[in-house]
Protein backbone atom coordinates (compact mmCIF):
# COMPACT_ATOMS: atom_id res chain seq x y z
CA UNK A 1 0.00 0.00 0.00
CA UNK A 2 2.81 2.34 0.95
CA UNK A 3 4.66 1.45 -2.25
CA UNK A 4 1.53 2.26 -4.24
CA UNK A 5 1.21 5.60 -2.50
CA UNK A 6 4.86 6.35 -3.18
CA UNK A 7 4.29 5.50 -6.82
CA UNK A 8 1.35 7.89 -7.05
CA UNK A 9 3.27 10.68 -5.35
CA UNK A 10 6.23 10.02 -7.60
CA UNK A 11 4.16 10.21 -10.77
CA UNK A 12 2.83 13.64 -9.89
CA UNK A 13 5.73 15.18 -8.03
CA UNK A 14 8.39 13.31 -9.93
CA UNK A 15 12.08 12.86 -9.50
CA UNK A 16 13.58 15.78 -11.36
CA UNK A 17 16.95 14.04 -11.49
CA UNK A 18 15.69 10.74 -12.87
CA UNK A 19 13.60 12.68 -15.35
CA UNK A 20 16.59 14.55 -16.73
CA UNK A 21 18.52 11.37 -17.40
CA UNK A 22 16.52 10.68 -20.53
CA UNK A 23 16.29 13.39 -23.19
CA UNK A 24 12.73 14.37 -24.08
CA UNK A 25 11.48 13.08 -27.41
CA UNK A 26 8.93 15.28 -29.10
CA UNK A 27 7.52 12.89 -31.65
CA UNK A 28 6.71 9.78 -29.59
CA UNK A 29 5.43 12.08 -26.87
CA UNK A 30 2.91 13.63 -29.24
CA UNK A 31 1.92 10.22 -30.65
CA UNK A 32 1.27 8.82 -27.19
CA UNK A 33 -0.74 11.88 -26.24
CA UNK A 34 -2.80 11.62 -29.41
CA UNK A 35 -3.42 7.88 -29.08
CA UNK A 36 -4.43 8.23 -25.47
CA UNK A 37 -6.77 11.13 -26.31
CA UNK A 38 -8.39 9.24 -29.20
CA UNK A 39 -8.93 6.16 -27.05
CA UNK A 40 -10.46 8.21 -24.24
CA UNK A 41 -12.78 9.87 -26.76
CA UNK A 42 -13.96 6.44 -27.95
CA UNK A 43 -14.25 5.23 -24.37
CA UNK A 44 -16.67 8.06 -23.60
CA UNK A 45 -19.01 6.80 -26.29
CA UNK A 46 -18.64 3.16 -25.35
CA UNK A 47 -19.46 3.99 -21.75
CA UNK A 48 -22.36 6.21 -22.80
CA UNK A 49 -23.73 3.37 -24.91
CA UNK A 50 -23.52 0.88 -22.06
CA UNK A 51 -25.08 3.25 -19.56
CA UNK A 52 -27.88 4.25 -21.94
CA UNK A 53 -28.76 0.68 -22.87
CA UNK A 54 -28.61 -0.29 -19.23
CA UNK A 55 -31.04 2.49 -18.38
CA UNK A 56 -33.24 1.54 -21.31
CA UNK A 57 -33.41 -2.10 -20.27
CA UNK A 58 -34.24 -1.09 -16.75
CA UNK A 59 -36.96 1.32 -17.82
CA UNK A 60 -38.62 -1.11 -20.18
CA UNK A 61 -38.39 -3.80 -17.58
CA UNK A 62 -39.88 -1.69 -14.84
CA UNK A 63 -42.69 -0.17 -16.80
CA UNK A 64 -43.86 -3.37 -18.36
CA UNK A 65 -43.10 -5.80 -15.60
CA UNK A 66 -45.29 -4.29 -12.92
CA UNK A 67 -48.45 -4.30 -14.97
CA UNK A 68 -50.54 -6.65 -17.05
CA UNK A 69 -53.85 -6.48 -18.86
CA UNK A 70 -56.91 -8.69 -18.83
CA UNK A 71 -59.10 -8.53 -21.94
CA UNK A 72 -62.67 -9.78 -21.78
CA UNK A 73 -64.53 -10.49 -24.97
CA UNK A 74 -68.08 -11.48 -24.35
CA UNK A 75 -71.53 -10.82 -25.74
CA UNK A 76 -72.86 -7.45 -24.57
CA UNK A 77 -75.39 -8.89 -22.13
CA UNK A 78 -72.75 -11.02 -20.37
CA UNK A 79 -70.05 -8.37 -20.30
CA UNK A 80 -70.91 -6.87 -16.94
CA UNK A 81 -71.27 -10.25 -15.27
CA UNK A 82 -67.99 -11.57 -16.67
CA UNK A 83 -66.15 -8.37 -15.73
CA UNK A 84 -67.41 -8.66 -12.16
CA UNK A 85 -66.43 -12.32 -12.03
CA UNK A 86 -62.98 -11.56 -13.39
CA UNK A 87 -62.45 -8.76 -10.86
CA UNK A 88 -63.44 -11.16 -8.13
CA UNK A 89 -60.94 -13.73 -9.29
CA UNK A 90 -58.24 -11.08 -9.53
CA UNK A 91 -58.96 -9.70 -6.08
CA UNK A 92 -58.47 -13.10 -4.53
CA UNK A 93 -55.25 -13.80 -6.42
CA UNK A 94 -52.13 -13.34 -4.32
CA UNK A 95 -49.56 -11.00 -5.84
CA UNK A 96 -52.03 -8.60 -7.42
CA UNK A 97 -52.07 -5.19 -5.81
CA UNK A 98 -54.91 -3.68 -7.74
CA UNK A 99 -57.25 -4.53 -10.58
CA UNK A 100 -59.46 -1.90 -12.13
CA UNK A 101 -61.89 -2.22 -14.98
CA UNK A 102 -61.30 0.59 -17.42
CA UNK A 103 -64.17 3.06 -17.75
CA UNK A 104 -65.54 3.82 -21.21
CA UNK A 105 -63.79 7.17 -21.08
CA UNK A 106 -60.40 5.61 -20.49
CA UNK A 107 -60.96 3.09 -23.26
CA UNK A 108 -61.98 5.87 -25.59
CA UNK A 109 -58.74 7.72 -24.79
CA UNK A 110 -56.75 4.63 -25.67
CA UNK A 111 -58.53 4.23 -28.99
CA UNK A 112 -58.55 7.90 -29.89
CA UNK A 113 -55.22 7.83 -31.74
CA UNK A 114 -56.67 5.28 -34.16
CA UNK A 115 -60.39 6.11 -34.45
CA UNK A 116 -60.62 9.76 -33.50
CA UNK A 117 -62.07 11.32 -30.38
CA UNK A 118 -65.78 10.94 -31.18
CA UNK A 119 -65.93 7.18 -31.18
CA UNK A 120 -69.09 5.86 -29.55
CA UNK A 121 -67.38 3.18 -27.52
CA UNK A 122 -70.58 2.10 -25.80
CA UNK A 123 -72.18 1.04 -29.07
CA UNK A 124 -69.28 -1.01 -30.29
CA UNK A 125 -68.55 -4.60 -29.35
CA UNK A 126 -65.10 -3.78 -28.08
CA UNK A 127 -63.63 -5.87 -25.30
CA UNK A 128 -63.51 -4.70 -21.73
CA UNK A 129 -60.01 -4.07 -20.41
CA UNK A 130 -58.93 -4.60 -16.83
CA UNK A 131 -55.61 -3.01 -15.78
CA UNK A 132 -53.72 -5.13 -13.27
CA UNK A 133 -51.00 -3.80 -11.04
CA UNK A 134 -48.76 -6.36 -9.46
CA UNK A 135 -47.13 -6.34 -6.07
CA UNK A 136 -43.34 -6.47 -6.27
CA UNK A 137 -43.46 -10.22 -5.73
CA UNK A 138 -45.65 -10.74 -8.79
CA UNK A 139 -48.30 -13.40 -9.31
CA UNK A 140 -48.45 -16.84 -10.83
CA UNK A 141 -49.57 -16.15 -14.41
CA UNK A 142 -50.17 -19.82 -15.35
CA UNK A 143 -52.30 -20.45 -12.27
CA UNK A 144 -54.34 -17.32 -12.90
CA UNK A 145 -54.95 -18.33 -16.52
CA UNK A 146 -56.35 -21.71 -15.38
CA UNK A 147 -58.69 -20.12 -12.88
CA UNK A 148 -59.88 -17.55 -15.38
CA UNK A 149 -60.51 -20.25 -17.97
CA UNK A 150 -62.84 -21.96 -15.54
CA UNK A 151 -64.69 -18.91 -14.28
CA UNK A 152 -64.45 -16.27 -17.02
CA UNK A 153 -64.22 -18.08 -20.37
CA UNK A 154 -63.96 -14.83 -22.37
CA UNK A 155 -60.89 -13.48 -20.55
CA UNK A 156 -57.40 -13.32 -22.02
CA UNK A 157 -54.48 -12.45 -19.75
CA UNK A 158 -51.58 -10.51 -21.23
CA UNK A 159 -48.68 -10.23 -18.80
CA UNK A 160 -46.44 -8.36 -21.33
CA UNK A 161 -43.73 -11.01 -21.13
CA UNK A 162 -43.67 -11.46 -24.84
CA UNK A 163 -43.02 -7.71 -25.38
CA UNK A 164 -40.59 -7.35 -22.59
CA UNK A 165 -38.23 -10.20 -23.21
CA UNK A 166 -36.83 -9.33 -26.65
CA UNK A 167 -36.53 -5.67 -25.70
CA UNK A 168 -34.62 -6.46 -22.56
CA UNK A 169 -32.51 -8.95 -24.41
CA UNK A 170 -31.61 -6.43 -27.10
CA UNK A 171 -30.75 -3.80 -24.52
CA UNK A 172 -28.71 -6.32 -22.55
CA UNK A 173 -26.71 -7.31 -25.62
CA UNK A 174 -26.11 -3.70 -26.48
CA UNK A 175 -24.79 -3.13 -23.00
CA UNK A 176 -22.51 -6.14 -23.28
CA UNK A 177 -21.17 -4.79 -26.56
CA UNK A 178 -20.46 -1.46 -24.88
CA UNK A 179 -18.57 -3.14 -22.04
CA UNK A 180 -16.64 -5.25 -24.53
CA UNK A 181 -15.66 -2.08 -26.41
CA UNK A 182 -14.42 -0.49 -23.18
CA UNK A 183 -12.30 -3.56 -22.49
CA UNK A 184 -10.89 -3.51 -26.02
CA UNK A 185 -10.14 0.20 -25.78
CA UNK A 186 -8.22 -0.38 -22.53
CA UNK A 187 -6.25 -3.23 -24.12
CA UNK A 188 -5.43 -1.25 -27.26
CA UNK A 189 -4.31 1.69 -25.10
CA UNK A 190 -2.06 -0.64 -23.13
CA UNK A 191 -0.67 -2.10 -26.36
CA UNK A 192 0.06 1.30 -27.87
CA UNK A 193 1.73 2.62 -24.74
CA UNK A 194 3.79 -0.57 -24.49
CA UNK A 195 4.97 -0.14 -28.08
CA UNK A 196 5.78 3.53 -27.58
CA UNK A 197 7.62 2.81 -24.32
CA UNK A 198 9.59 0.00 -25.92
CA UNK A 199 10.53 2.25 -28.82
CA UNK A 200 11.68 4.92 -26.36
CA UNK A 201 13.70 2.39 -24.36
CA UNK A 202 15.33 1.02 -27.50
CA UNK A 203 16.13 4.52 -28.76
CA UNK A 204 17.82 5.29 -25.46
CA UNK A 205 19.79 2.04 -25.18
CA UNK A 206 23.08 3.95 -25.07
CA UNK A 207 21.91 6.16 -22.21
CA UNK A 208 20.67 3.10 -20.33
CA UNK A 209 24.08 1.44 -20.81
CA UNK A 210 25.82 4.51 -19.35
CA UNK A 211 23.43 4.56 -16.39
CA UNK A 212 24.02 0.86 -15.76
CA UNK A 213 27.76 1.41 -15.93
CA UNK A 214 27.70 3.99 -13.17
CA UNK A 215 25.56 1.79 -10.94
CA UNK A 216 21.93 2.75 -11.63
CA UNK A 217 19.38 0.11 -10.66
CA UNK A 218 16.69 -0.91 -13.12
CA UNK A 219 14.02 0.67 -10.95
CA UNK A 220 15.80 4.04 -11.20
CA UNK A 221 16.04 3.84 -14.99
CA UNK A 222 12.46 2.63 -15.35
CA UNK A 223 11.21 5.57 -13.28
CA UNK A 224 12.14 8.14 -15.88
CA UNK A 225 10.19 6.29 -18.57
CA UNK A 226 7.23 5.23 -16.45
CA UNK A 227 6.58 8.74 -15.20
CA UNK A 228 6.63 10.21 -18.69
CA UNK A 229 4.29 7.71 -20.26
CA UNK A 230 1.91 7.73 -17.31
CA UNK A 231 1.61 11.49 -17.50
CA UNK A 232 1.17 11.39 -21.27
CA UNK A 233 -1.62 8.83 -20.93
CA UNK A 234 -3.21 10.98 -18.23
CA UNK A 235 -3.04 14.26 -20.16
CA UNK A 236 -4.13 12.68 -23.44
CA UNK A 237 -7.08 10.89 -21.84
CA UNK A 238 -8.14 14.05 -20.01
CA UNK A 239 -8.29 16.00 -23.25
CA UNK A 240 -9.95 13.12 -25.14
CA UNK A 241 -12.66 12.46 -22.60
CA UNK A 242 -13.34 16.16 -22.24
CA UNK A 243 -13.93 16.49 -25.98
CA UNK A 244 -16.03 13.31 -25.90
CA UNK A 245 -18.24 14.66 -23.14
CA UNK A 246 -18.55 17.97 -24.96
CA UNK A 247 -19.75 16.12 -28.06
CA UNK A 248 -22.33 14.20 -25.99
CA UNK A 249 -23.44 17.37 -24.30
CA UNK A 250 -24.10 18.96 -27.67
CA UNK A 251 -26.42 16.09 -28.73
CA UNK A 252 -30.15 16.93 -28.55
CA UNK A 253 -31.56 16.20 -25.11
CA UNK A 254 -33.64 13.08 -24.47
CA UNK A 255 -37.32 13.58 -25.32
CA UNK A 256 -40.42 12.24 -23.62
CA UNK A 257 -40.67 9.47 -26.21
CA UNK A 258 -37.06 8.77 -25.19
CA UNK A 259 -35.69 7.28 -28.33
CA UNK A 260 -32.51 5.33 -28.04
CA UNK A 261 -29.98 7.69 -29.57
CA UNK A 262 -31.12 10.81 -27.80
CA UNK A 263 -30.87 9.07 -24.44
CA UNK A 264 -27.13 8.68 -24.91
CA UNK A 265 -26.15 11.34 -22.41
CA UNK A 266 -24.67 10.88 -18.98
CA UNK A 267 -27.00 11.38 -16.07
CA UNK A 268 -26.25 12.13 -12.47
CA UNK A 269 -23.45 10.12 -10.95
CA UNK A 270 -22.36 8.61 -14.23
CA UNK A 271 -20.66 11.91 -15.02
CA UNK A 272 -17.98 10.66 -12.63
CA UNK A 273 -16.69 8.73 -15.64
CA UNK A 274 -15.27 12.04 -16.86
CA UNK A 275 -12.82 11.82 -13.97
CA UNK A 276 -12.46 8.07 -14.06
CA UNK A 277 -11.41 7.71 -17.72
CA UNK A 278 -8.15 9.70 -17.39
CA UNK A 279 -7.32 7.98 -14.11
CA UNK A 280 -7.90 4.57 -15.65
CA UNK A 281 -5.79 5.59 -18.66
CA UNK A 282 -2.99 6.68 -16.33
CA UNK A 283 -3.15 3.36 -14.48
CA UNK A 284 -3.04 1.50 -17.80
CA UNK A 285 -0.05 3.64 -18.86
CA UNK A 286 1.73 3.08 -15.55
CA UNK A 287 1.36 -0.69 -15.68
CA UNK A 288 2.12 -0.99 -19.40
CA UNK A 289 5.29 1.14 -19.24
CA UNK A 290 6.48 -0.52 -16.04
CA UNK A 291 6.11 -3.97 -17.57
CA UNK A 292 7.73 -2.91 -20.85
CA UNK A 293 10.63 -1.23 -19.04
CA UNK A 294 11.32 -4.21 -16.79
CA UNK A 295 11.25 -6.58 -19.73
CA UNK A 296 13.38 -4.42 -22.04
CA UNK A 297 15.95 -3.62 -19.36
CA UNK A 298 16.46 -7.33 -18.68
CA UNK A 299 17.47 -7.79 -22.31
CA UNK A 300 20.01 -4.97 -22.21
CA UNK A 301 23.17 -5.60 -20.32
Amino acid at each position, binding site marked *: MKALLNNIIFVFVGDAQADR*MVPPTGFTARLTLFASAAMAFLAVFAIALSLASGRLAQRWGQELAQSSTLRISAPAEQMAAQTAAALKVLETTPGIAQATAMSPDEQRALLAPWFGPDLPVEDLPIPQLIAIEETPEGYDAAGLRLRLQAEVPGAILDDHTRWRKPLQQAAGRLRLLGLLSIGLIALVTAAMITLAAQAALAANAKIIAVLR*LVGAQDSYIAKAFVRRFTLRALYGATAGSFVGFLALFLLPAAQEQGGFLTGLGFQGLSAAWLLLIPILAAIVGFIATGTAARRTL*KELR
Partner: protein
Amino acid sequence: MIELNNVAYSYGGGELLSEIDLTIQPGDFYFLTGPSGAGKTTFLKLCYGDLTPTAGEARLFGQDVRTMDRDAHAMTRRRIGVVHQDCDFLDHLPLADNVALPLTVSDRNDLEQVANLKELLSWVGLKQRAKALPPELSGGERQRAALARAVIMSPDLVLADEPTGNVDWEMSQRLLQLLIELNKMGKTVIIATHDMNLIRAAKAKVQARVLRIANRHVQLAGADL
Protein backbone atom coordinates in the same frame (compact mmCIF):
# COMPACT_ATOMS: atom_id res chain seq x y z
CA MET B 1 38.30 -8.30 -3.83
CA ILE B 2 38.34 -9.98 -7.23
CA GLU B 3 38.93 -13.69 -7.52
CA LEU B 4 39.21 -15.37 -10.87
CA ASN B 5 39.43 -19.15 -10.69
CA ASN B 6 40.35 -20.87 -13.94
CA VAL B 7 38.31 -18.31 -15.83
CA ALA B 8 37.90 -18.45 -19.60
CA TYR B 9 36.00 -16.23 -21.97
CA SER B 10 34.96 -16.77 -25.55
CA TYR B 11 32.80 -14.59 -27.77
CA GLY B 12 31.81 -17.71 -29.69
CA GLY B 13 34.42 -19.53 -31.67
CA GLY B 14 37.76 -19.95 -29.96
CA GLU B 15 38.53 -18.77 -26.45
CA LEU B 16 39.97 -15.27 -26.25
CA LEU B 17 41.17 -15.74 -22.69
CA SER B 18 41.61 -18.99 -20.81
CA GLU B 19 42.87 -20.44 -17.56
CA ILE B 20 43.03 -17.16 -15.72
CA ASP B 21 43.79 -17.62 -12.03
CA LEU B 22 44.16 -14.33 -10.27
CA THR B 23 43.27 -12.80 -6.95
CA ILE B 24 43.30 -9.04 -6.65
CA GLN B 25 43.67 -7.70 -3.12
CA PRO B 26 42.62 -4.32 -1.75
CA GLY B 27 45.39 -1.77 -2.27
CA ASP B 28 46.90 -3.49 -5.29
CA PHE B 29 48.12 -1.44 -8.24
CA TYR B 30 48.18 -3.29 -11.54
CA PHE B 31 49.02 -2.45 -15.09
CA LEU B 32 47.56 -4.62 -17.80
CA THR B 33 49.45 -4.76 -21.09
CA GLY B 34 49.39 -6.79 -24.24
CA PRO B 35 48.99 -6.33 -27.98
CA SER B 36 45.74 -4.75 -29.09
CA GLY B 37 43.02 -7.34 -29.58
CA ALA B 38 44.62 -9.59 -26.98
CA GLY B 39 41.67 -9.16 -24.64
CA LYS B 40 42.57 -6.29 -22.30
CA THR B 41 39.10 -4.80 -22.47
CA THR B 42 37.51 -8.24 -22.12
CA PHE B 43 39.61 -8.87 -19.01
CA LEU B 44 38.47 -5.59 -17.48
CA LYS B 45 34.85 -6.39 -18.31
CA LEU B 46 35.21 -9.70 -16.49
CA CYS B 47 36.54 -7.73 -13.52
CA TYR B 48 33.47 -5.51 -13.21
CA GLY B 49 30.91 -8.12 -14.08
CA ASP B 50 29.92 -6.75 -17.47
CA LEU B 51 30.83 -10.14 -18.93
CA THR B 52 30.20 -13.48 -17.28
CA PRO B 53 32.99 -16.02 -17.74
CA THR B 54 32.14 -18.81 -20.18
CA ALA B 55 34.10 -21.17 -17.95
CA GLY B 56 35.47 -21.00 -14.45
CA GLU B 57 34.35 -18.83 -11.57
CA ALA B 58 34.57 -15.08 -11.03
CA ARG B 59 33.88 -13.57 -7.63
CA LEU B 60 33.47 -9.82 -7.10
CA PHE B 61 33.64 -8.69 -3.48
CA GLY B 62 32.96 -12.29 -2.47
CA GLN B 63 29.89 -12.74 -4.69
CA ASP B 64 29.80 -15.20 -7.55
CA VAL B 65 29.06 -13.24 -10.74
CA ARG B 66 26.74 -15.97 -11.99
CA THR B 67 24.43 -15.76 -9.00
CA MET B 68 24.25 -11.96 -8.86
CA ASP B 69 20.99 -10.39 -10.01
CA ARG B 70 20.76 -7.07 -11.82
CA ASP B 71 20.43 -5.02 -8.66
CA ALA B 72 23.42 -6.76 -7.12
CA HIS B 73 25.38 -5.84 -10.25
CA ALA B 74 24.26 -2.22 -9.91
CA MET B 75 25.41 -2.18 -6.29
CA THR B 76 28.77 -3.65 -7.29
CA ARG B 77 29.23 -1.01 -9.99
CA ARG B 78 28.95 1.66 -7.32
CA ARG B 79 32.09 0.23 -5.73
CA ILE B 80 33.94 0.03 -9.03
CA GLY B 81 34.87 3.09 -11.08
CA VAL B 82 35.24 2.27 -14.77
CA VAL B 83 36.93 4.39 -17.44
CA HIS B 84 35.95 3.06 -20.82
CA GLN B 85 38.13 3.38 -23.88
CA ASP B 86 35.24 4.97 -25.76
CA CYS B 87 34.04 7.29 -23.03
CA ASP B 88 30.24 7.15 -23.00
CA PHE B 89 28.36 10.12 -21.62
CA LEU B 90 24.81 11.36 -21.58
CA ASP B 91 25.14 13.80 -24.46
CA HIS B 92 22.23 16.02 -23.42
CA LEU B 93 23.61 16.77 -19.96
CA PRO B 94 26.50 19.18 -19.21
CA LEU B 95 29.87 17.80 -18.21
CA ALA B 96 29.46 18.50 -14.49
CA ASP B 97 26.22 16.52 -14.39
CA ASN B 98 27.85 13.67 -16.26
CA VAL B 99 30.72 13.52 -13.82
CA ALA B 100 28.25 13.58 -10.92
CA LEU B 101 26.08 10.88 -12.53
CA PRO B 102 27.18 8.03 -10.19
CA LEU B 103 26.16 10.20 -7.22
CA THR B 104 22.86 11.09 -8.84
CA VAL B 105 21.79 7.53 -9.59
CA SER B 106 22.68 6.38 -6.09
CA ASP B 107 20.91 9.34 -4.41
CA ARG B 108 24.04 10.78 -2.86
CA ASN B 109 23.87 14.18 -4.48
CA ASP B 110 24.40 16.20 -1.32
CA LEU B 111 26.29 19.43 -0.71
CA GLU B 112 29.51 17.79 0.42
CA GLN B 113 29.63 15.86 -2.80
CA VAL B 114 29.05 18.99 -4.85
CA ALA B 115 32.17 20.50 -3.25
CA ASN B 116 34.07 17.32 -4.12
CA LEU B 117 32.85 17.60 -7.68
CA LYS B 118 34.35 21.09 -8.08
CA GLU B 119 37.66 20.01 -6.62
CA LEU B 120 37.75 16.95 -8.82
CA LEU B 121 36.94 18.94 -11.95
CA SER B 122 39.74 21.39 -11.28
CA TRP B 123 42.13 18.49 -10.61
CA VAL B 124 41.48 17.05 -14.07
CA GLY B 125 41.59 20.56 -15.55
CA LEU B 126 37.96 20.73 -16.60
CA LYS B 127 36.72 23.45 -14.26
CA GLN B 128 36.22 25.87 -17.13
CA ARG B 129 34.37 23.26 -19.16
CA ALA B 130 31.84 22.25 -16.48
CA LYS B 131 28.87 23.56 -18.45
CA ALA B 132 29.95 22.16 -21.81
CA LEU B 133 28.03 19.29 -23.39
CA PRO B 134 30.03 16.08 -23.99
CA PRO B 135 29.94 16.34 -27.82
CA GLU B 136 31.71 19.69 -27.53
CA LEU B 137 34.68 18.16 -25.70
CA SER B 138 37.93 16.99 -27.25
CA GLY B 139 39.07 13.39 -26.94
CA GLY B 140 41.45 14.23 -24.11
CA GLU B 141 38.81 16.20 -22.25
CA ARG B 142 36.42 13.28 -22.54
CA GLN B 143 39.01 10.91 -21.07
CA ARG B 144 39.66 13.22 -18.17
CA ALA B 145 35.94 13.58 -17.57
CA ALA B 146 35.51 9.80 -17.67
CA LEU B 147 38.24 9.39 -15.08
CA ALA B 148 36.65 12.01 -12.88
CA ARG B 149 33.31 10.20 -13.16
CA ALA B 150 34.97 6.89 -12.31
CA VAL B 151 36.51 8.15 -9.08
CA ILE B 152 33.82 10.52 -7.79
CA MET B 153 32.15 7.80 -5.68
CA SER B 154 35.53 7.08 -4.09
CA PRO B 155 35.23 3.46 -5.27
CA ASP B 156 37.12 0.50 -3.84
CA LEU B 157 38.37 -0.42 -7.29
CA VAL B 158 39.20 1.73 -10.33
CA LEU B 159 39.42 0.07 -13.73
CA ALA B 160 40.82 2.26 -16.50
CA ASP B 161 41.02 1.21 -20.13
CA GLU B 162 43.73 3.30 -21.87
CA PRO B 163 42.98 6.35 -19.73
CA THR B 164 45.89 8.33 -21.17
CA GLY B 165 45.48 7.43 -24.83
CA ASN B 166 44.43 10.89 -25.97
CA VAL B 167 46.13 13.23 -23.52
CA ASP B 168 49.57 14.80 -23.58
CA TRP B 169 52.40 13.60 -21.36
CA GLU B 170 51.91 16.28 -18.76
CA MET B 171 48.22 15.53 -18.38
CA SER B 172 48.82 11.79 -18.34
CA GLN B 173 51.21 12.35 -15.42
CA ARG B 174 48.51 14.30 -13.69
CA LEU B 175 45.92 11.59 -14.20
CA LEU B 176 48.40 8.97 -13.05
CA GLN B 177 49.08 11.03 -9.94
CA LEU B 178 45.35 11.06 -9.19
CA LEU B 179 45.19 7.26 -9.46
CA ILE B 180 48.31 6.90 -7.31
CA GLU B 181 46.78 9.15 -4.63
CA LEU B 182 43.68 6.97 -4.66
CA ASN B 183 45.84 3.88 -4.36
CA LYS B 184 47.59 5.36 -1.36
CA MET B 185 44.17 5.73 0.23
CA GLY B 186 43.80 1.97 -0.07
CA LYS B 187 41.91 1.78 -3.36
CA THR B 188 42.75 -0.88 -5.90
CA VAL B 189 43.71 0.34 -9.37
CA ILE B 190 43.96 -1.60 -12.62
CA ILE B 191 45.09 0.31 -15.71
CA ALA B 192 45.11 -1.23 -19.16
CA THR B 193 47.70 0.50 -21.33
CA HIS B 194 50.43 -0.17 -23.79
CA ASP B 195 52.27 3.03 -22.88
CA MET B 196 55.50 1.67 -21.37
CA ASN B 197 56.63 5.14 -20.35
CA LEU B 198 53.57 5.50 -18.21
CA ILE B 199 54.27 2.18 -16.50
CA ARG B 200 57.89 3.20 -15.84
CA ALA B 201 56.79 6.56 -14.46
CA ALA B 202 54.34 4.84 -12.15
CA LYS B 203 56.83 2.26 -10.93
CA ALA B 204 58.99 5.07 -9.60
CA LYS B 205 56.17 6.26 -7.38
CA VAL B 206 54.17 3.23 -6.42
CA GLN B 207 54.60 -0.49 -6.10
CA ALA B 208 52.91 -1.50 -9.30
CA ARG B 209 52.68 -4.97 -10.78
CA VAL B 210 52.28 -5.68 -14.45
CA LEU B 211 49.92 -8.24 -15.92
CA ARG B 212 50.67 -9.25 -19.48
CA ILE B 213 48.21 -10.93 -21.79
CA ALA B 214 49.92 -13.29 -24.19
CA ASN B 215 48.68 -16.46 -25.87
CA ARG B 216 45.25 -16.19 -24.24
CA HIS B 217 46.81 -16.22 -20.79
CA VAL B 218 47.15 -13.47 -18.22
CA GLN B 219 50.57 -13.65 -16.60
CA LEU B 220 52.36 -11.63 -14.01
CA ALA B 221 55.33 -10.06 -15.76
CA GLY B 222 58.73 -9.90 -14.12
CA ALA B 223 60.58 -6.73 -13.25
CA ASP B 224 62.11 -6.58 -16.73
CA LEU B 225 60.65 -3.41 -18.14
